[in-house]
């Protein structure tokens, strides 16, 4: 079985994140970039499955600029068998549907039984790429899973949305996305980091995929304007000396919040 994990690099949410006010794109120089947290959980699932089921290959697939190499290599250090990075100047600022078209072409190029993605990324928060891929590849999707069961033929799992719990099942090949409820990812150890250096790491352009992707032929979403909001200023801060609750009640009344 071949499991392809869609790995995405994002600005580290523990630091401040910036958008470049000229291009509207993430400002890479200003924020640290890491593998997105939920993506790591997806990888963890794939790698632990492969450890228990011989003959499972785990491929990390990413679409990003070439400086994402370090983040993608972390997937190899964690235990993925090989990595494919789609990097192409024509893709800078790609919207959801273009991203999905390129990833669909890459998945077809690699071949897969199961595709696993995070259910949303911390910087885009669209959470729609897996659904778009299911449509483009004509494979079933089960998204936002909180549990997953996988065998050679099918994948099933639980999806909880507000008050509704669905049990879903799909024949392979299929695409799933997992939520942050999945177990934490392992830290790559020294052995893993050394081994990662010898693992296959392909960097491909859109042309290498042999797919017919025309950026301008279809409508695309574009940013038209961008502005930074002035940071929020702190207001009053008091230390409780026995009457803070009363003072708060006064504040709420004065501001007509009760």
């Amino acid at each position, binding site marked *: 079985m071949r499991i392809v994990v869609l790995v995405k690099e994002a600005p580290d*949410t523990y*630091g401040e994140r*910036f*958008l470049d006010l000229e291009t509207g794109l993430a400002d890479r120089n200003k924020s640290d970039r890491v593998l997105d947290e*939920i993506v790591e959980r997806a990888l963890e699932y794939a790698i632990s499955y492969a450890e228990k089921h011989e003959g499972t290959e785990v491929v990390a697939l990413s679409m990003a600029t070439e400086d994402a190499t370090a983040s993608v290599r972390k997937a190899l250090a964690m235990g993925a068998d090989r990595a494919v990075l789609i990097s192409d100047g024509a893709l800078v600022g790609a*919207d*959801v*549907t273009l991203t999905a078209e390129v990833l669909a072409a890459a998945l077809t190029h690699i071949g897969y039984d199961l595709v696993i993605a995070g259910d949303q990324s*911390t*910087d885009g928060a*669209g*959470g*729609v790429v897996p*659904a*778009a891929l*299911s*449509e483009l590849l*004509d494979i*079933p*999707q089960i998204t*936002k899973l909180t549990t997953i069961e996988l065998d050679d033929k099918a994948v099933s799992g639980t999806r*909880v*949305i507000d*008050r*509704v*719990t*669905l*049990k*879903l*099942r*799909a024949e392979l090949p299929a695409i799933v996305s997992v939520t942050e409820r999945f177990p934490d990812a392992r830290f790559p150890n020294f052995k893993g980091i050394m081994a990662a250096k010898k693992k296959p790491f392909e960097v491909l352009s859109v042309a290498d995929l042999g797919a017919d992707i025309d950026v*301008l032929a*279809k*409508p*695309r*979403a*574009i*940013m*038209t*304007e*961008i*502005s*930074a*909001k002035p940071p*929020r200023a*702190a207001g*009053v*801060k008091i*230390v*409780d000396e026995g009457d*803070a*609750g*009363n003072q*708060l*009640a006064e*504040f*709420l009344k004065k*501001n007509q*919040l*009760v």
Partner: protein
Amino acid sequence: MTDNILVLLDSTPDGQLSKSVPGLLGAATGLGNPIALIVGAGEHADALSAAAAAAGATKVLLADGDNTIYSTPTVDALQAAAALVQPAAVLAAHSDQSKEVVARFAVRTGAAVNYDAIDVTRDAKGIIASHSAYGGAFVVTSAVTFAAPVITVRQGVVEARGTAQPVVAEKLAVTPSGRKSAAIESIDVADAPTSLRPELRGATKVVSGGRGLGTAEKFVLVEQLADALGAAVGASRAAVDAGFVPQTFQVGQTGVQVSPQLYVALGISGAIQHKAGMQTAKTIIAINKDETAPIFEIADFGVVGDVFTVVPQLIAALEASGK
């Protein structure tokens, strides 16, 4: 003639329109003639059509659902509806169900998506969506290069409302696409919450508790203050992970994003991922015993103190003043 705007409506398991609907139809009214699509209304078709018309839909298209096939029947219905009404834009809630449906619709029909808009407007050049990026630190507007945009709208943020219309409902014929789909093996619907507390998404007041509440038992303090204020209850991820409350209460980057008039943070440190879900609140109050907690950097009124002494006093003061 005014352009048609096709609006995909979400409904709840007990046959009501989702709370996102009035805002969605309000946004659509600002762009053109709102035509609603409801999939799988079943026995609730009349009530849902009436509610949609009251919220501004000039016409309601009703398509059959299928409780055994995941997502695809709704995509097929949206495709059929768009073919029928030739909309100038397709709008849907940025909800877990609908955002996936419209993404599939968009790639199927070759349209572009602007997702998670907080506002939608129309100018001479076309339809423009505004978005709040990185938890409200940036405001971005987007459009599509050509053709009708598909736009998902963040739930509970649009204030515009449509005007009530006479009920015009019509059954929509849908040809199944036969796309490969997951099977729905079971559907479990938890009982609607019995409390009269407002729903977190779209609430005008929110009281949230964090790890500082200590235990699930002691988390009731958050609920008591929420009830005294008529507020919804929220939580940090640490409080969810510790099992104080279910995941649906999580506020933040990977939880619900709220923009209330009042946000009260109890025993929450103010991690950047939490702030991403609440820092656009009008007024923020924080109570935390650590004076260096980052939540104080964005609080309009911060109390350095113990929630277990400050909050009971606050509740007593609110009750004493007849509130």
